[in-house]
């Protein structure tokens, strides 16, 4: 493998070894033998085994590269190593399946992961679709299932901000999809280490839930309820805002709601709706999303999304006993028919997209082309 090419492409050679990446890495605080800085250092010294297990520790939150003063693209470096590992016959699924076995139980579906129950429904809470996530959080908090929740609110327009809260008011304010990454797992690590041990619910994207499960292996008595969101890809707000402004001639900061459905992004402002193809926003997509293969948040206790259910309803995949218990708390649930095929189709599409991108990256590195 031409690890040298990967180092060039991702600028690992710029590393000053300041350690900001490792101290920023939510995984590294628990998985103590995992360190982005240490991996970078060993790569530069030619001591890195590209197939070692540690390359699967990264959850692609990109906080390390977002904050790296030297512009090292560590997540892509890791994806490059993974691409090589896959070529050499390592099975990507293996790492996910191991975690599934640890935390979930139910029937195994090739495309959708572990399923105990697949339903579609809505509650009376106002939310992105059926208000399920908001209702789950409120029910859990009010019934004392968990004491705090980590959710994402809107700040300064449509910017996403992850917060730790113990109030229903905050949860209501956090309803609705933001289509951006926000460091929920970082907040979780802070909550555990600084805020003390409390039963916690966290809403996360598939990547975040993967990270949480990696962490949980090293902190088994963490009382955690994970709610995963279906996710095809996510955007950088700073990049998305100007593109939307140009294409749709609207200020994203003023939007009431953003909806991504069937290949289109719809921005709602008041009674006005403007839409364009999601493809046109490609430049604003977070780098790691290109390689991600998980659409339905396979490792969450409960996954929620809009795909697979009619307008105004949410699809729910219950994957663990914990998830089942939490879902059982919903009093005002109105069920409807769920379209399993539709979910599977999108899950497959995302997987193929991710694997293709990884293969391309692997080929590019092997060919030594920039």
């Amino acid at each position, binding site marked *: 493998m031409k690890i040298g090419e990967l180092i060039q492409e991702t600028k690992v050679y710029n590393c*000053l070894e300041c350690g900001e990446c*490792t*101290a920023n890495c939510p995984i590294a605080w628990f998985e103590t033998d995992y360190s982005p800085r240490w991996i970078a250092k060993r790569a530069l010294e030619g001591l890195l085994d590209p197939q070692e297990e540690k390359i699967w520790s990264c959850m692609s939150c990109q906080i390390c590269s977002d*904050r790296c003063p030297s512009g090292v693209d560590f997540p892509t470096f890791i994806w490059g190593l993974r691409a090589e590992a896959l070529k050499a016959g390592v099975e990507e699924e293996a790492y996910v399946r191991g975690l599934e076995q640890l935390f979930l139980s139910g029937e195994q579906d090739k495309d959708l992961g572990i399923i105990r129950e697949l339903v579609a429904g809505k509650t009376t809470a106002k939310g992105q679709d059926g208000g399920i996530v908001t209702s789950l959080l409120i029910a859990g908090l009010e019934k004392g299932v968990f004491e705090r929740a980590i959710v994402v609110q809107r700040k300064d327009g449509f910017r996403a901000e992850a917060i730790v809260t113990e109030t229903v008011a905050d949860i209501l304010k956090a309803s609705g999809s933001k289509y951006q990454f926000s460091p929920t797992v970082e907040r979780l690590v802070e909550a555990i280490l600084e805020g003390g041990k409390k039963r916690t619910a966290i809403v996360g994207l598939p990547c975040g839930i993967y990270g949480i499960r990696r962490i949980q292996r090293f902190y088994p008595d963490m009382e955690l309820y994970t709610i995963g969101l279906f996710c095809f890809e996510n955007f950088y707000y700073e990049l998305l805002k100007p593109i939307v402004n140009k294409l749709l001639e609207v200020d994203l900061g003023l939007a009431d709601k953003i909806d991504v459905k069937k290949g289109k992004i719809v921005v709602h402002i008041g009674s006005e709706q403007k839409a364009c193809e999601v493809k046109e926003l490609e430049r604003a997509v977070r780098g790691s999303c290109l390689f991600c293969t998980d659409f339905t948040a396979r490792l969450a206790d409960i996954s929620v999304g809009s795909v697979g259910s009619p307008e105004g309803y949410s699809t729910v995949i219950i994957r663990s006993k914990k998830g089942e218990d939490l879902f059982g708390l919903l009093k005002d649930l109105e069920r409807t028919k769920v379209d399993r095929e539709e979910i599977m189709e999108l899950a497959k599409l995302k997987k193929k997209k991710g694997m293709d991108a990884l293969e391309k990256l692997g080929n590019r590195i092997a060919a030594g082309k920039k």
Partner: protein
Amino acid sequence: MTGNKSVVVIGGGVAGIQASLDLAEQDFKVYVVERNPSIGGRMAQLDKTFPTNDCSMCILAPKMLECFGHENITVLSYSEVKEVSGEKGDFTVKVRRKPRYVDEEKCTGCGACVDACLLKDRFPDEFDMGLRKRGAAYLPFVQAVPKVAVIDPEQCIFITKGKCGKTPACKEACERDAVDFDQKEEEVELHVGAIIVATGLEVYEPFDIEEYGYGRIQNVIIGLQYERMINAGGPTGGHLIRLSDGKPAKKLAFILCVGSRDLKRCPYCSSVCCMYATKSGMLAREHEEDMESFVFYTDLRAFGRGFQEYINRGLEEYGINYIRAKPSKITENVNKSPVLWYEDTLTGELKRMEVDLVVLATALTPNRGVEELAKVLGVELDEYGFFKVKDPVYAPVDTSRDGIFVCGFAQCPKDISDSVAQASGAAGRAGEVITEVSLK
């Protein structure tokens, strides 16, 4: 004989003062154009200087007075260069003099107007980096030169709204009738043979580095705020305090390379932070025996004469703890104490540390307004906004335009002694150019 034997020096900090004095001593006529109400620049804000721990103001104040009082020097304070025409040996420089609303001849700097101002203690004081509040009428600082009060036209309600009591309190209080609201902006035209740029630096305020919480976490401050705090004449009388509750700060953390050596912000090294952080740790210990200091560094750059020895002294004599880490973030705990999260890169351990006060050694950048000034002067800036020199080896003080020279931080990051050395170099070159033209 063409041209004339005078020079404009833009900026009255230590570099500008040095260049002016060098020229004035050789009988050249010098005009110092200073944007602020007083000369002195950044050095005036410092408590001590490294690597000797001398009192900064004790070195600078006599130079400020000498500069102001020199028969060959005219200080145009509260003024800015607006237009430059002509060429080497024969420049015409138009200077805008902002109204102070206080007569420079009559004012003795007694401070009666400052005490009388109805808006006293309402606005963040620039000199004390916002740690103290001042009124609309204020004295720049105790040792200001000229020691003349100034009334801020954007803050004074008599200027903005036309009304302040029956008669403005400051005017009433002044025994020498120096307050003059009829002052207007003036334009001065100067004819000089050369120009020296000594505009100094601005301090990066790291609001965009959200993970460090500057502006959000009260006990996170920047380097110059620390300088003001530890200065006996500063806003806390030299006591290091937690801004959240005013209690003594006993445990200090200094983070180096904040916004500097950062490809997304200021890619260059600010060149003075490793040393001033060490100095700060020493001074803290000199103030209080039980003070603990932790310096978080990426690389300790002790490249100057006596610098490595200085750091060794910090370690051995002052017990400063150097930690090789760039903290990833600062959070605030329930006591409002900052908590640093970091990887000790020498051991690979992830740690958290609660302290009383965090001092961010932020990037030092070219001063505000250098782009406009460069346009006015017709000279080039480098990619970071520092004044470009013709050749760093053969012409280290010549800008891209003949007859215009640069010195100090305006050219690139450097400490006080390097700034002063370069100022003498710029003065030498300016004198040389004028003499050469006038002899033709």
